[in-house]
């Protein structure tokens, strides 16, 4: 029986999301029995232009070469998944979209003209159709395998839409915002990570991106009540997912006219 072909592509990113596959341990051995991995540079196979059923795309689009390559990948893929924060919203790199990238390059590099660098770091969905977005910095194996399993069943993968607070409360964690005025982003962030940070007593920093409903105004005002300046509130939204529209708007709102 022929197995569906899978490719894992990487753009500008730390490779951490690919570890959702590589860190699987014994489960990783099941994968080749289910899919034919034709391109996965970090794991070995290298055939970037092989047409595939599913392409997992990690990283944001930052160069002219990226622009060309993402189009090629889209043409070669039946189903394209943006894997993680960078591919889904531009990730941390998108912070530079709010600065003058050309001025930075001129200040940092002796010969900036040799760089192939676009002025922005953007999400894959800004360039091609994305069939499924997996949020997270990094994504975890449960998310990724859940999506792959659903695709193998031939059904649309179920997307998590609940806010992190619901997952956090199910875990039995005590709310860090209520007990300690932690500037926790849980109420406006997608669930899916397992509430890792709040369970360790730390504030969520929204690495899973905006929840389905984002009341940034209300949460931001609460943070101001804890003593944060508007600029600090803006930075809570403009961090891992500054490129996500809801967080982009929230940060701009608190930054005011600046």
């Amino acid at each position, binding site marked *: 029986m022929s197995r569906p072909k899978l490719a894992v592509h990487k753009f500008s990113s730390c490779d951490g999301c690919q570890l959702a596959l590589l860190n699987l341990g014994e*489960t990783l051995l*099941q*994968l080749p*029995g*289910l899919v034919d991995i034709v391109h996965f540079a970090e794991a070995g196979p290298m055939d970037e232009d092989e047409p595939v059923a599913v392409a997992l795309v990690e990283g944001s689009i930052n160069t002219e070469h990226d622009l060309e390559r993402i189009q090629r990948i889209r043409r070669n893929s039946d189903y394209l998944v943006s894997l993680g924060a960078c591919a889904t919203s531009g990730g941390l790199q998108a912070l530079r979209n709010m600065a003058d990238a050309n001025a930075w390059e001129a200040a940092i590099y002796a010969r900036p003209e040799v760089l192939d660098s676009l002025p922005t770091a953007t999400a894959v969905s800004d360039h091609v159709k994305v069939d499924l977005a997996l949020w997270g910095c990094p994504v975890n194996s449960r998310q990724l*395998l*859940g999506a*792959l*399993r659903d695709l*193998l*069943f031939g059904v649309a993968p*179920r997307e998590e*839409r*609940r*806010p992190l*607070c*619901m997952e956090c*409360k*199910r*875990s*039995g*964690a*005590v*709310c*860090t*915002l*209520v*007990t*300690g005025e932690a500037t*926790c982003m*849980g*109420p*406006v962030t997608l669930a899916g990570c397992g509430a890792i940070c709040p369970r360790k*007593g730390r504030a969520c920093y929204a690495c899973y991106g905006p*929840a*389905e*409903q984002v*009341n940034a*105004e*209300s*949460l931001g*005002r*609460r943070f101001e009540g804890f003593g944060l300046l508007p600029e600090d509130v803006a930075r809570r939204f403009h961090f891992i997912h500054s490129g996500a529209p809801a967080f982009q708007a929230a940060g701009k709102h608190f930054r005011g006219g600046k």
Partner: protein
Amino acid sequence: MDQAWSRPVHLYGVERPRGSKTVPSTPVFLPPDSLQRLLDSLRGSGRQLMGPLVRDGAIVFDRIENAAELPRGMRDIQSPGSYRLEQSDSPRLFAWANGPQALKPMTFAPEEVLWQVVRDDSGLHFEPQASTPAPTAVIGVRGCDLAALQLQKAHFLQEGAEDPAFQRRLDKLLIVAVDCSHPADTCFCASTGDGPDAGPGHDIALTELDEGFLLRAGSPQGQEIIDSLALPPASTAQLQAAAESSRGASDAQTRKLPATDLRDALFARQDHPHWAAVAERCLACGNCTAVCPSCFCSAYEPRPSLDGAESEQVRLWDSCFSFEHSNLHGHPVRDDIRLRYRQWLTHKLAGWHDQYGRSGCTGCGRCISWCPVGIDLTEEVASLLEEPA
């Protein structure tokens, strides 16, 4: 827990659970240094003991072994969106109102596998996943939580549609309640009629006084445990002190819900402009529903193995604030925060009257304290009952 009162009780406060018709036993006195004897007998018959502990800045219920682990002298300072613990000199172990959870996770599990399906050459095989909860005794439960348990029973044990997972957990649970002597600023159980004393649904109820504890039985099983301790009857002065403590705990409450049935008033105010005012603050994060001891909504999620050979069907706590909760035929019928908050509040305080014969609120105040932005149910209700300007 005897079978009689594990049955649904629709009108808590009006109709008492069957099995409690006997005259309440005479309270007995337990000196503080004998508390361990009570805990040891609760742990008899292989039961695990759950009790209040301080963890991560809150009173939480977890496994305990010894009376020394109980939160001696701990006080909770609660206000909208805020919860703090403070150590006092008091020798009391229950001088606090509540924490984020009490009974609910012990009867309605946050996540639970309901059934499993396995595929082999002969086809698909569906198996119920009979969780086998450990026999458990819990100490420190309050009147608001007992009343909420009655509401949960009304929901999960509706005749002909009994939820086996809930039933199994409840059957294994021995409940030691504590009359509330130190309500928090967010408490309003006196106005809902669910506290501060522990009402029906406990096996043993305990009143904490400066000099020790008064114990009374709420079930034959509780009576048996009390009898085994061979304690002297409480003195008239002790009973008097308990009554005063109860009065004091009622009088100390500053928040309240109207004592009347709010059903018609709230349903008549579906278009009140105040819903939009709440929605400006509400985060739709669902914390209120998670900490609410009576909220029972759930979602179902298949969790297939990677090879597709088996799959578990998991039930998890959901919330009327989630997208999926109102996603009908591919369209969310409540697609903004205003409609979701309205759904929560009108269901809790109005719809429940039709479904379960009373309001769904037992006055624990958790939705007020644990709301990240401090939305106060009692204030919102008061605003909604005002005619719009």
